[in-house]
């Protein structure tokens, strides 16, 4: 390409302005020659101005860009964000399409277990870097880096790169690291970018057919194979339509890697053409169906989100009812909801005490070689024992008992 053509290749990414925090805006213009020219404005310039200049050069070099004019308006973005925004701006300019610049790798936590606690999963919009770093301090069981509904369609490419860098660089403590990809086929592009950074679980939105799950599963295993990833990447399909609900069991059993099944009530009620109410009677059937299909498939059933972040009493009631139906957790859209959800999904003290007594009786029977477990004058059926064992195990995992 001639330099005249190259000089018209420009792209922008990120955000800046008085209200913006922890983000950066990059205006990238490819040049025919003259090397790298960077201009920087930053609210943290006295402290990190030099570091930002150095990183910008490093990222450009990593992307293989030799001649460009780059204008950086920084609002205190952290390095993983700066890298993502530069890479996105360059790609939008049509430059360095196959190159990557990856931030320093934070040690990847231990792989998550298929049966782990999933009471709460905190949604984090994939285009808002300011929410990432402190998310784990609020101790949800999982964080979801969302590429779907919380990301504007013009920002999908940027969010994908940002989420990839986030998986790599941000410490999420003991939280399971989930990513909600877009609907297929766009979701496949998301997978290509992020699976290499070992997310623990992929949420697939608006699943209606088992084939959608198998397609995602196939792509994940291809990438895992290519990248030499041996740890599991679990799948949680989200059912958000009447058809999805009808096919729940097939979807839950579409892959060994499906760890949980969940439901999205906004879209589901829209599909039915009914209003979503606080009591949720309109979705009673669908939610029960999800629980039943999930249990039949041997996976967890997880409830939708509670939309009113100001109503903690409503959330608690919803959560308690949800647990009573057989769900093991729900989504959160605000950190303030996490504790309430954990409270809702915590077995009551009476339940725990009863379960502990049953477990003790079961262990005693085992040690005596008795097939029949009895508590006082009552005989305890095997399924009751199984439920008690599971409850005690969950209560331990929640820290409700030691």
């Amino acid at each position, binding site marked *: 390409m001639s330099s005249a053509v190259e000089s018209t290749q420009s792209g922008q990414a990120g955000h800046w302005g008085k209200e913006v925090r922890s983000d950066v805006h990059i205006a990238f213009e490819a040049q025919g020659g003259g090397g790298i020219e960077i201009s920087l404005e930053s609210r943290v310039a*006295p402290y990190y101005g030099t570091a930002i200049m150095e990183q910008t050069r490093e990222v450009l070099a990593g992307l293989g860009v030799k001649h460009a004019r780059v204008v950086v308006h920084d609002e205190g973005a*952290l390095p993983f964000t700066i890298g993502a925004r530069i890479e996105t701006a360059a790609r939008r300019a049509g430059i360095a399409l196959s190159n990557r610049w990856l931030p320093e790798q934070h040690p990847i936590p231990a792989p998550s277990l298929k049966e782990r606690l999933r009471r709460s999963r905190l949604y984090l919009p994939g285009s808002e870097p300011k929410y990432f770093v402190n998310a784990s*301090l609020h101790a949800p069981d999982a964080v979801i880096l969302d590429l779907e509904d919380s990301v504007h369609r013009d920002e999908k490419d940027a969010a994908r790169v940002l989420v990839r860098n986030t998986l790599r660089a941000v410490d999420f403590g003991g939280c399971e690291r989930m990513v909600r990809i877009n609907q297929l086929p766009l979701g496949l592009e998301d997978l290509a970018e992020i699976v290499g950074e070992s997310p623990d679980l992929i949420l697939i939105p608006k699943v209606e057919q088992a084939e959608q799950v198998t397609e995602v599963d196939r792509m994940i295993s291809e990438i895992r194979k290519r990248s030499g990833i041996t740890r599991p990447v679990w799948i949680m399909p989200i059912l958000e339509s009447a058809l999805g609900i009808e096919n729940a069991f097939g979807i839950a059993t579409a892959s060994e890697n499906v760890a949980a099944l969940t439901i999205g009530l906004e879209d589901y009620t829209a599909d039915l053409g009914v209003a979503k109410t606080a009591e949720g009677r309109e979705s009673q059937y669908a939610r029960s169906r999800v629980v039943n299909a999930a249990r039949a498939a041997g996976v967890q059933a997880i409830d939708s989100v509670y939309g009113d972040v100001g109503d903690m009493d409503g959330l608690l009631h919803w959560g308690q009812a949800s647990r009573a139906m057989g769900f093991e957790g729900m989504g959160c859209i605000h950190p303030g909801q996490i504790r309430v959800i954990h409270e809702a999904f915590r077995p009551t003290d009476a339940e725990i005490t009863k379960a502990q007594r049953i477990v003790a009786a079961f262990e005693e029977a085992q040690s005596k070689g008795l097939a029949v477990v009895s508590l006082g004058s009552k005989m305890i059926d095997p399924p009751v024992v199984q439920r008690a064992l599971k409850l005690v195990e969950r209560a331990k995992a929640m820290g409700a008992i030691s």
Partner: protein
Amino acid sequence: MSERVELAHNALGRAVPTMVNGKPQIPFLGVGKFQPRGRKAAPAISSNKDYPDTGDKRVPDLETALRKCGLRDGMVISSHHHLRDGDKVALMALEAAAKIGAKNLMWFPSASFPSQKGAIELMEKGVIHHIEGSMNGPLGDYCTQGKMRGMGVLRSHGGRYQAIQDGEVHVDIAVIAAPTADFFGNADGSHGKSACGSLGFALADSTYADRVIVVTDNLVPFPCVPWQIQGNNVDYVVEVESIGDPAKIVSGTTQITRSPDRLRIAELVALFLRSTGIMKNGFSFQAGAGGIALAFVQYLKKMMKEDGVKARFVRGGSTKFLVELLQEGLTDYILDGQTFDLDGVKSMANDPRHIASSPFTSYNYHGKGNFASLVDAVVLGATEVDVNFNANVVTHSDGRLLHGIGGWQNCLFSGCSILAVPSFRDRIPVIVDEVTTMTGPGEMIDVIVTERGIAINPRRTDLLDAVKGSKLPIRPIQDIKAEVEKICGGKPSRPKLGDRPCAVVKWVDGTVLDAVWQVS
């Protein structure tokens, strides 16, 4: 200011000027090491024969009042910040002085606010020579850019009282904005359309200044009660249309932070007080009106209710949240130095258990004790904290003046001083190797609470013991610092500061704790 400034190193190793605005200074000697001598300052003896028997001290306007007070070049004019950013009186007085033709005044506000940036023009014109008092926003920038002719002097609320009382600063003319007053000069802050609560900041000036002018927009027939300012100290009373903008004097509603991270900090502070047993029947605490402090009060309130605990007193800056504690019987008293919202103002006006306090009762270090040291725990902010628990509240890490000291230094004498701060702001770590400006020595700061954990000063082995076995995230301060530096991509660079001091920070005893350096 072109003369060479002699510097000395104080007990904390900070280089400080030995002369400030022509007056010799004592470098900080260590907490409790400076022994003051001599007698307090006093104004000249007055005689009733010079004041009208009718008690009517009204004059038509501020200009007349200032003329009658004998305004001359180089005088010290004081004002107060109980009307906060809504105050109109200070600038009104300084502009009246300019009209008279006065030059080289020293403006001595208890604090200045961004709306008073008009003072810059008066400095440019030579009416004001320099400011001794907190400077932030445009005035702070003017000072740290080295444009002010004299040196800024930053004092705590208690330190300002001490400086007046000890004669370090002699106030020639005090101008006191009064939301309600009578013609005799009795003045009250808790009533009137510009009500602000307490007038405590003006107490020292009213008793030690040569001349005292009360300016009011709500003149009531004698007697004005309560008389927070006694008319017997007042020379002239000026009635004006408006002393301030009510919307900026108090906020209609004070807002609790909605940031989940800051709420977490607030909750950790409350949990800390509960776990250590500081929160017990008859205890006391102070918290300001910042978003974290307000949220802290709400969390603590819940815990007090759960545990059946009641406080003997709480100290304001009062807000609706402290008022609710009083009304719900969770504290016997509010001792209030400054009132931040309408609920606070109403409560002080109507509830005898909500008491206006002053820098004399609360904060003065050269007295026979003060209330601040009686408080069991205080929750404060900071712009920077270092690994030795020293803290900065006056400058940004880039050296620009940002805040006044307020009562912050004085509060450090409480039983447990807690700084509730985010571990970083906009990528800028709050925990640093060494603070840019020393405002509080680390030996006075007990606990740093951040969203990433709680650091207890190793000197406080009692607190470390008290939290043993608790679930609180107690961590060494270096640990939190290292984690944040990793997140932020390394240690921040230290901005280059100039070698010319443009302001000093006084300790509560009048010694010089640190210098603020000109920003290049």
